[in-house]
């Protein structure tokens, strides 16, 4: 396998982008990445697009062809592929791009992710998001997507003593980081009380325990490492990629307080990179719900099972902590346009490893990790990055 580098990154603001269409945001992010990589259209060999629900959000399928067309690449007839794995669509698209370059099939590959969620009603949006869970045996029986995560939280509190306040601390930290991120959907700090007083969504999770719906897109440009210096001074290598699946329904998992797929995907990524958890300096994890970040930092190996809440409360995952988690603000504060999230995580890690993360910069960040989850953990993709 060839070694693969990221030579360019780009993203839109995340939020309620009323004036921009799906095509607009996809192209905006892609153009920014391509400009950042100093490449031209004719150099692009293939395109991968992560997107979960365009068919229902904007009644449009066939996304790969759509983005290639509006990027002006139709007459170059490049292979364009849409990748879907619910919330992990973006991370999975990145992996598909990585595989394409690593295998030698393509040289320069653009990988993007985009989602336009705000054009439908809240209720419709919730229904679309719930299709990440098991429709026949979870959703139809009354379990909403937040309810499933609430079931995880309740059980985690029961088995490991995690507290309501510790869940809130995840949101507080991520909003703090988000306030330092000019592209974040939410840029205001919040207090524990804000979370605890927000409206109940599904007990014990409240509104501020849940990432928002967002519009947004992000993209990266990949090329073989040995070519990268032609395009950028600071290529960031993808040193590890791991993917894992698990039961679709939460109730079929061995232990609902552990995302096995996270552990397996991480192990596969670390094995490929020949590194361990201790080597990671900065991590973007999938915090669509506060409890999800707690599970993630445990299952990725940063803390022992059951210790995630306490570690967060102690500030060990803050910008200055033992392991800086979700420096971008995470899904919670930066926003979560579903298909874009996996790429947004990569964009943040690359910025950190380039030393270009501004006020959010983690000192001497050399190795970064991105963790992207689909459904309640039925798909997980983990990537490791290192300054080349």
């Amino acid at each position: 396998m060839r070694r693969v580098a990221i030579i360019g990154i780009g993203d839109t603001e995340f939020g309620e982008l009323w004036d921009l269409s799906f095509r607009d945001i996809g192209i905006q992010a892609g153009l920014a990445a391509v400009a950042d990589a100093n490449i031209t259209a004719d150099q692009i060999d293939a395109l991968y697009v992560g997107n979960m629900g365009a068919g229902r959000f904007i009644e449009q399928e066939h996304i790969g062809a759509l983005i290639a067309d509006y990027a002006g690449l139709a007459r170059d007839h490049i292979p364009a592929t849409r990748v879907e794995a619910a919330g992990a669509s973006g991370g999975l698209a990145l992996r598909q791009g990585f595989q394409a370059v690593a295998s030698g099939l393509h040289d320069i590959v653009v990988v993007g992710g985009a989602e336009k969620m705000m054009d439908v009603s809240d209720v419709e949006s919730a229904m679309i998001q719930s299709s990440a869970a098991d429709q026949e045996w979870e959703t139809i029986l009354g379990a909403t997507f937040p309810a499933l995560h609430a079931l995880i939280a309740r059980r985690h509190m029961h088995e490991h003593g995690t507290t309501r306040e510790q869940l809130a601390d995840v949101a507080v930290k991520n909003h703090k980081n988000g306030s330092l991120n000019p592209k974040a959907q939410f840029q205001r700090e919040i207090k524990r009380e804000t979370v605890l007083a927000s409206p109940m969504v599904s007990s014990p999770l409240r509104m501020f325990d849940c990432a928002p719906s967002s519009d947004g897109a992000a993209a990266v440009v990949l090329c073989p490492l040995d070519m990268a210096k032609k395009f950028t001074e600071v290529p960031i290598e993808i040193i590890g990629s791991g993917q894992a699946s698990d039961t679709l329904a939460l109730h079929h998992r061995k232990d609902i307080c552990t995302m096995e797929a996270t552990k397996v995907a991480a192990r596969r990524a670390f094995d490929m990179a020949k590194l361990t958890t201790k080597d990671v300096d900065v991590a973007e994890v999938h915090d669509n719900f506060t409890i999800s970040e707690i599970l993630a930092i445990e299952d990725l190996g940063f803390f022992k099972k059951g210790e995630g809440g306490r570690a967060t409360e102690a500030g060990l995952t803050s910008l200055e902590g033992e392991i800086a988690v979700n420096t971008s603000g995470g899904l919670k504060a930066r926003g979560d346009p579903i298909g874009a999230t996996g790429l947004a995580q990569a964009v943040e890690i690359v910025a950190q490893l380039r030393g270009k993360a501004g006020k959010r910069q983690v000192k001497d960040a050399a190795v970064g990790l991105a963790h992207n989850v689909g459904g309640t953990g039925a798909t997980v993709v983990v990537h490791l990055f290192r300054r080349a």
Partner: protein
Amino acid sequence: MATAPRFWREYPSRYNLVGFKCNNCGKTYFPPRAICPVCHRKSVGKIEEVKLKGTGKVYSVTEVHDTLDELAMMKPYLVAIVEMDEGPKLTGQVIDCEPCDVAIGTPVRVALRKLSEEGSAGVIHYGYKFVPVKDSTGGSVNIRVMT
């Protein structure tokens, strides 16, 4: 929500908790599948339809405030993962009780209720929900008796 044929196909499981037993490994699963998730092809020809008794214990529970349209009339309502006596876990609403009646470990039994309707002119979908019980004979929790 589900269309009529898609929902109808699963009636035996939704009305009567029909799952399956793998006669290769002896375990019971829900819902029915073509092959046992553990034994794979060794289970072909050894899959036996099995009806769960309908009793189990709450494994985790949440009170849902932000609901899907179909259930807006019942919010807030309880949803739980229930570990059935035979082993499989199911997800469903817990009804006919106060939220304080239900905790991890509460015994429950199954009841047939309306899950949703495809609008006021559409098909009504019936399926399983859970009711807390006080004892193993399936009698209801007695909080107040009217004479």
